[in-house]
């Protein structure tokens, strides 16, 4: 690990008079993997957007390789050797991998036409260097999410990147894909590329990073080598206080006698859901574990009436019901926190308030007239309860940080007081403090008699809250394990991967 390659000094940035970054100092050494951590809305993405020329700083200086740089736009940043893999992908699905890698920089033939051959050849070289097994001619839309990300990285590497920024790269990846990513990070490091890594997943940080910087409320609270800090200390720095609650599983009293609220029998839907059966009782938290592509999201979508059901039964409170639309599901007290908050969960251009009340319009209205006071009260309550970081409930939701947007999606269903909750990756992008709060809220909901089904690829989280875990493989539920019979994450991993 060499000299300091990047110096960001006394960086200040505000939006509409609200300070987001307050004299942040951030130094990165050449060839290291540097974790940038902090709670939702701490300013991580903002700092990195300044470094990539997306936002302009109000005050401060940036030096790359000891010379001061002025980053007015993304092109300036690229020329200075900085590239970013965004929280939201920026690929064009209908184009091939090679076309995406060379978008806007297509090599030309002497006649000025696009040189497809060279493009494919150069892309192949990069892909080979990365040790991937995709073809430059594959259409991006046909690749799995993991490979989208690989394509993004290939794109960054094709432009002589010195500093590569990854903003929550693993939030959409499976465990195996995550491992592929980590070995790639390792390899990039060997070849001298510096990486800034943003994530809310603690275990990952200690696995891949050399040093850590923690931002809190727009200031740098600590920069330290990974080896000199413990997980607990790190969490304390992030949330700025001692944490009482933790990721420990607590056994909750069981109420066996009641009839199940939700019963699914031999459910079939699309090509991914082949034979799913389970029952979910009031007061129960049921975890659904499986690999990506095993059909978990498709299962909850089918139950919720988004995807058409092609076979089997869904029974709600003992009555046979198959929902043909989410509206029917909601009327019967079923709610879904969808997998993708940006496309399925939020109307990004609308305010926090509008989004939170959207699935409860019927409940919040009298004779179809919206009761504004009642709505405002509920919204205020939830903003407080979930600790959503926003200047006002009127703020456009797309201007909130990623984790705070996720909280708004969750709030939609808390406001609705839904009895049967289907949660698909409910804490995606949420910081460690808020994760614990959300787990606590889910427990409270179950204690109050609600039924909760949770899909999560984060095993620690799944095991922290589930009373029972269903294992899903290739469109079928293969087993159901009581939480108290699970010793550790390995048990579940084995069941997920296992032959049986």
């Amino acid at each position, binding site marked *: 690990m060499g000299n300091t390659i990047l110096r960001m000094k006394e960086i200040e940035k*505000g*939006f*509409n*008079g609200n300070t987001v970054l307050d004299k942040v100092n951030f130094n990165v050494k050449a060839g290291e993997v540097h974790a940038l951590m902090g709670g939702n809305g701490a300013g991580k993405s903002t700092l990195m957007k300044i470094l990539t020329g*997306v*936002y302009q700083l109000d005050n401060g200086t940036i030096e790359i390789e000891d010379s001061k740089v002025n980053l007015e736009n993304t092109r300036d940043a690229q020329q200075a050797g900085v590239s970013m893999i965004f929280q939201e992908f920026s690929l064009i699905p209908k184009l091939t991998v090679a076309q995406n890698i060379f978008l806007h920089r297509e090599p030309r033939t002497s006649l000025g036409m696009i040189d497809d051959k060279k493009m494919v050849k150069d892309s192949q070289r990069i892909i080979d260097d990365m040790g991937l097994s995709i073809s430059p001619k594959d259409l991006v839309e046909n690749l799995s999410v993991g490979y989208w990300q690989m394509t993004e990285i290939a794109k960054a590497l094709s432009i002589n990147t010195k500093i590569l920024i990854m903003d929550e790269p693993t939030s959409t990846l499976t465990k195996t894909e995550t491992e592929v990513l980590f070995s790639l990070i390792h390899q990039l490091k060997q070849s001298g590329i510096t990486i800034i890594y943003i994530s809310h997943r603690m275990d990952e940080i200690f696995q891949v990073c050399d040093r850590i910087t923690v931002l809190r409320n727009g200031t740098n609270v600590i920069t330290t080598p990974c080896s000199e800090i413990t997980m607990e200390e790190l969490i304390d720095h992030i949330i700025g206080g001692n944490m009482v609650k933790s990721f420990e599983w607590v056994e909750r009293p069981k109420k066996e006698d009641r009839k199940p609220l939700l019963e699914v029998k031999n459910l079939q839907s699309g090509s991914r859901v082949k034979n799913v059966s389970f029952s979910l009782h009031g007061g129960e938290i049921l975890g659904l574990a499986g690999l990506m592509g095993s059909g978990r999201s498709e299962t909850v979508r089918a139950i*919720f009436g*988004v995807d058409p059901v092609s076979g089997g039964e869904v029974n709600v409170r003992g009555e046979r019901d198959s929902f043909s*639309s*989410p*509206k029917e*599901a*909601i*009327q019967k007290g079923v709610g*879904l926190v*969808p997998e993708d908050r940006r*496309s*399925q*969960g*939020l*109307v*990004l*251009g*609308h305010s926090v308030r*509008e989004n939170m*009340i*959207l*699935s409860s*319009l*019927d409940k919040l*209205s009298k004779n*179809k*007239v*919206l009761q504004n006071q009642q709505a405002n009260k509920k919204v205020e309550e939830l903003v407080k309860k979930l600790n959503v970081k926003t200047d006002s409930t009127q703020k456009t939701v797309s201007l909130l940080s990623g984790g705070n947007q996720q909280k708004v999606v969750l709030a*939609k269903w808390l406001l609705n007081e839904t009895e049967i909750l289907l949660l698909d990756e409910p804490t995606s992008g949420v910081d460690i403090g808020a994760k614990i709060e959300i787990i606590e809220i889910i427990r409270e909901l179950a204690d109050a008699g609600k039924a909760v089904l949770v899909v999560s690829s984060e095993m620690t989280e799944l095991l922290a809250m589930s009373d029972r875990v269903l294992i899903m493989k290739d469109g079928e539920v293969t087993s159901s394990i009581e939480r108290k019979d699970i010793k550790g994450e390995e048990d579940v991993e084995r069941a997920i991967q296992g032959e049986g």
Partner: protein
Amino acid sequence: MPSKVKGKLINFDWRQYIVYIAFVLVLIYFSITLAEQGFMTTHNLLNIARQTAMISIMGVAMTFVISSKEIDLSVGSVAALSAITTALTMQAGLGMISGVLVGLGTGLAIGFVNGYLVTRVAIPSFLVTLAMMMIARGLAMWVSGTAPIPILSDSYIFLFGSGSVLGVPILLIWTLIIAAIGHIILRKFTFGRETLATGGNEMAATYSGIKTNRIKMTVFMASGMMAGLAGMLYAGRLQAGRFTFGEGDELSVIAAVILGGTSLFGGVGTVIGTVIGSIMIGTINNALILQGLDVSQQMVVQGIIIILAVAFGRKKKKA
């Protein structure tokens, strides 16, 4: 502290209010430059209100259509067809009530077909309503045999054309009633939220339990019905049904809506803005006439206004 104030000022989203500011400026400008031609007289102002009533009324419904991220190009032709069907019904001696019901029903039926084709057959609304624009105009010519159909009922002419109550022209009263209803539905009723959410992000709206197809169906039917009403007002004003009514109105209506601050990209809409937009376009046309310019020049000016409206109404760039 000063930096905070500056931040607030820059943050003031003047685009949202641009139509009101522009409208006031336009009024002030013409009241000075056209003082001698009698621009600011009550007579002239009421005249503007009368002339713009149809565009405003169609604009109210179009605000919902555009807010839901759809478009309706058929409104002008539907107005003509409804004027004809109303006039024919009354000519056949079936009375005013039937005439009115047939006129509104014509608009409603066409709106239903538009909505059906958009939501069930999944044809983009641009294409559906472009075709419907031709079909409705063609039908209007066909059933009327291209001849004007006179309307003789005095009460119809009073209610839908030249009447006035306490000095307020009936056309202005219609405009105010429709605008008030539209505004309240958009702002106070769940239907308004659902329309905006559908236009803002259809998938998220569906996941939130909104039947987006039903919303779209409803807004197309409302648009058809308001076009029908506008056609009946044209007929009342000119005391006849003519197939030429409302030619080119679709563009004026869309211009008024966009000028008023409703987003062509869906999810943002304002009924009051639309009405102001419509009146402003009418005011400028009126002023051009007072200045002695003719229809050709009005068209040029109107085209420029549309471009300016869209340019200023564009989504705010990222900070």
